[in-house]
C-alpha cells in the first residue's frame, strides 16, 4: 500500500477533523446530562426531573437526570462547574452555591457557572408540633422574646444551612441576637420534623412543602411563612409581615446553569428552551401541586439575582458568626 503515507494520512485526518466543524449539526445532537447535587426523591430532584422531561421534548434529545449527592451539595455543584462547557452537561444549582464558599467548604461560587435560568424559590416557614403551647406566630414570637436566650430550640437543616440562616434573619429582624434560639443541626428537613414531632425541638424553619407530611399527619402546625405573600396551597398560613409587621423574607432557590464559558449560542438555545419549559402548563401544575414556588429569571436576571444573593448571604452569615475566613 504505497499510496497511504504518513503525510496523506495526516492530511486526511486533518480534513476529517475540519469538515465536521462546517457540517456540524445543530446543538444538541446527542443526549444531555442534567446533574442534580441532591438525592433522588427530594424537592430539587423532583424539580430537575420535570424540567428534564420538558427539555427533552423541546430539544428532541434525551435529557438524563443524574444525582451526584453528598458533601452538603459540594460534590454535585463541583461536577457541574468542572464539566466540559459544551452544553451536554448542565445542572440544577441551588441556594447553597451562594453559601458554601463563605463557610470555606469550596472555592465554587455563583460566578463559577454560566447561569441559564432561575426557576423556583421557596420561602422558609415556622412550624411547631401539634401539641405546642403556642397557638399562633404572635404567641410564639412573644414567648421567644420573653424567655432567656437558649430556652427555645429550633432545627431544619445542618449548621449554617439556609433554614438556619432564615431563623437567624428572623430573630435579628425581631431585634434579638441570631443565637437567641439554639440551633440543633439536622440531616435535612425530614429528620428535623421527626425531632419536632418527638418533642426534641420547639420549632422548625424549613419550607412548608417540606413540613407537609407531618402537617398532614396532624403532628405539626405551620404558623407562618417568611415571604412577601402567602402560598396559595397553604392559604391559611400567614406571612411574618401581616402578623408581626416584620418585612423579612428569604428563601431557597433553584436554577439551571452550565459550566463557565458556555458558548453564547448554546446558552441561548438552552435558555430559550428553559423559558418554554417554565411557561409550560405541566411545569406550573406540577410545582403548584407540590406547593413549590415558581419564579422566572433569564440568564442575565439569574446572574444578577445570584450576585445579590451571594452578597446578602455573606452578610447574613458573617452576622450570624457562620462565615469562616
Amino acid at each position, binding site marked *: 500500500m504505497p499510496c497511504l503515507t504518513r503525510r496523506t494520512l495526516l492530511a486526511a485526518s486533518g480534513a476529517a477533523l475540519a469538515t465536521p466543524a462546517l457540517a456540524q449539526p445543530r446543538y444538541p445532537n446527542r443526549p444531555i446530562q442534567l446533574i442534580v447535587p441532591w438525592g433522588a426523591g427530594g424537592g430539587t430532584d423532583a424539580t430537575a426531573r420535570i424540567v428534564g422531561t420538558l427539555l427533552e421534548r423541546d430539544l428532541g434529545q434525551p435529557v438524563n437526570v443524574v444525582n*451526584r449527592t453528598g*458533601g452538603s451539595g459540594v460534590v454535585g455543584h463541583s461536577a457541574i462547574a468542572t464539566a466540559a462547557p459544551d452544553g451536554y452537561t448542565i445542572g440544577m444549582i441551588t441556594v447553597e452555591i451562594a453559601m458554601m464558599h463563605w463557610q470555606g467548604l469550596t472555592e465554587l461560587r455563583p460566578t463559577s457557572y454560566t447561569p441559564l435560568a432561575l426557576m423556583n424559590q421557596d420561602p422558609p416557614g415556622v412550624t411547631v408540633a401539634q401539641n405546642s403551647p403556642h397557638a399562633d406566630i404572635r404567641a410564639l414570637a412573644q414567648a421567644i422574646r420573653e424567655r432567656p436566650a437558649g430556652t427555645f430550640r429550633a432545627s431544619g437543616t445542618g449548621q449554617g444551612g439556609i433554614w438556619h440562616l432564615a431563623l437567624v434573619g428572623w430573630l435579628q429582624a425581631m431585634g434579638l441576637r441570631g443565637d437567641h434560639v439554639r440551633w440543633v443541626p439536622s440531616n435535612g428537613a425530614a429528620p428535623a420534623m421527626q425531632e419536632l414531632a418527638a418533642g426534641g425541638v420547639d420549632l422548625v424553619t424549613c419550607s412548608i412543602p417540606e413540613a407537609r407530611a407531618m402537617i398532614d399527619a396532624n403532628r405539626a402546625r405551620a404558623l407562618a411563612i417568611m415571604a412577601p405573600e402567602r402560598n396559595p396551597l397553604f392559604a391559611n398560613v400567614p406571612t411574618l409581615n401581616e402578623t408581626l409587621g416584620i418585612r423579612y423574607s428569604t428563601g431557597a432557590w433553584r436554577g439551571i446553569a452550565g459550566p463557565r464559558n458556555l458558548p453564547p449560542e448554546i446558552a441561548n438555545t438552552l435558555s430559550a428552551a428553559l423559558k418554554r419549559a417554565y411557561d409550560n402548563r405541566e411545569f406550573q401544575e406540577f410545582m403548584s401541586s407540590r406547593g413549590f414556588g415558581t419564579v422566572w429569571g433569564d440568564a442575565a436576571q439569574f446572574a444578577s439575582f445570584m450576585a445579590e444573593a451571594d452578597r446578602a448571604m455573606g452578610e447574613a452569615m458573617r452576622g450570624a458568626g457562620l462565615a469562616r475566613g
Partner: protein
Amino acid sequence: MDALIQAFGLVFDPFVLAVIAVSAVFGMFVGAMPGLTATMATALLVPVTFFMPPVPALGAIVTATAMAIFAGDIPAAMLRMPGTPASAAYADESYEMTKKGQLNLNMGVNLVFSVAGGLIGVAVLIAAAPLLAEVAINFSSFEYFWLACLGLTCAVFLTNADAVKGFLSLFLGLLLATVGIDPSAGFPRFTFGEVELMQGINFIPTMIGMFAVSELLRNAVSVRDAGHVVVQQVGNIFRGLGAVFRRYWLNFLRGSAIGTVIGALPGAGADIAAWISYAVSKRFSREPQKFGTGHVEGVVDATSANNSAIGSAWIPALVFGIPGDSITAIVIGVLYMKNMNPGPMVFTENPQLIYAVFLIFILANLIMLPLGWAAIKSARQILRTPRNLLLPVILLFCIVGSFAMTNSLYGVALMLVMGLLGWFLEQHGIPVAPLILGLVLGEMLEQTFVQSMIKADGAVLAFFERPIAGALGVLTLLIWATMLVRAATHRPAAIAA
C-alpha cells in the same frame, strides 16, 4: 384499608410478578452456589433495582434473599459446602444425613421448615413493625443515640469471632464513617481536599466490595475445584415429613422464635441465628449424643431459624433505619434511593408500599415451595456451573452497581479498595459485619450525640431524662457492664495460658 387494596394492586401487576419470578430463580442460583451469599445476591441486584419503581425493586431483594437462604442448604447436604454462611451451622449434620442415605428427608426438612420459619418471621414483621413505628414516632435524638449504641454493641456481642477482633472491625467502621462532611458543624474531615471524598464512604459500594469482591478474590486464590457432586438421586423429598413435624414441632417453634429475635437485633442475621438455634437445640435435646451423626433434630431448629431471621431483620431497618443484618444494610440504601426514607413516618407516608413489601414477603415464601423443589431436583446441573464464567459476570455487576450508587468512578474505586480490605480482614479472622454496622450507624451515633448535647446544653443526665431514653440507656450500660465484668474475669486466665 385503602392502602392494603392499593398494595394488592401494586404487587399483582405483571411486571412486578415477573420481577419476583426472575429474582426467585436468581436467588436460588446464588444461594446454591457455594461462596455466593444472600448479601451478595442483594448487592448484585442494586444496579438492576436502580431502574425500577420501589415495589419491584424491594420485591426483587425480598424474594432473592429468602430463596438464597434456603438454597444454601442444598450444597451443604450434597457437597458439605454451605451455599451461604447461614447454612454453615448444620452443613456437617446435613452431610452426615446424606451419607446415611437420608438426603431426601434432609432436603424435605430444609425446604418445608425454611418456608414455615420464613412465614413466622414475616408474621412477626407484619405485626410488630407498624406497632413499633407508633412508638418510634415519639423518639428524639436521645432515644436514637441509645438505639445506635445498642446496635453497635450487638454487633460485637453476637459475632462468632473473638471480641477484640469484633471491636477492631467496629472501630474501623466508625473511623470510616467520619470521612466526609461532619454532620453537625458541616466541616470536611479526612477529605484531603478531594471533592469526591466529601460525600464520605458510601456504604453500598463498600458492602459490594466487602461481600462480593472479597469473595471473588477468595475464589480466585483458592484453586480448589468445586465441581464434584457426589450425590445419590433425589427422590420424593416430602416423604416422612409428617413424622418429623409431629416429633419436632417444638424445635420448629423454638428455632423460628430464636431466628426472629436474632434477625431483629442489629448486626446479626440468618447465619448467627442458625448457629445459636443449633446450639440451643443440642443443649436442650433429649439425645444430644446423636448431634453431628446425621440427626435431623438440630437441622429443624436451624433451618427454621435462618429463614425466620430474614423477615424480622426488616423491623429495625424500616422503623429506625438501623439494619437488622447485612442484607437490610443494603436495603436501607435502596429505600433512600426510592424516597422511602426509613423511619416511623414511612408507615404513614407510604403505607401502600410497606404493605406491598409485606405481601411480597408472603408470596416469596409460598413460591419457595415449588421453586425449592425444582432447585433440589436440578441441583446437579446448578452445581456444575463453571466458575471461570461466573466470577467475571459477578465482577461486572459489582462495577455497574457501585457506579450507579455515586454516578462516578469514585464508587467503583471505593468498591475495589473495600474488596481488598474485606479480603484482608477475613484472611485474618476479623469479621466484616461489625465494620459495616459501624459505617452505617456511625453518622447516626455522632449526629444524635451532638444534637442531644446541644439540646441539653451539655448536661449528660438529659440522656436519661425521657422515660424511653432512660430505659434504653440503662439497658445499654448494663450490657456494657456485663461485657466488662466478663472480660475482667476471663482475662487473667487468658494471660496465664
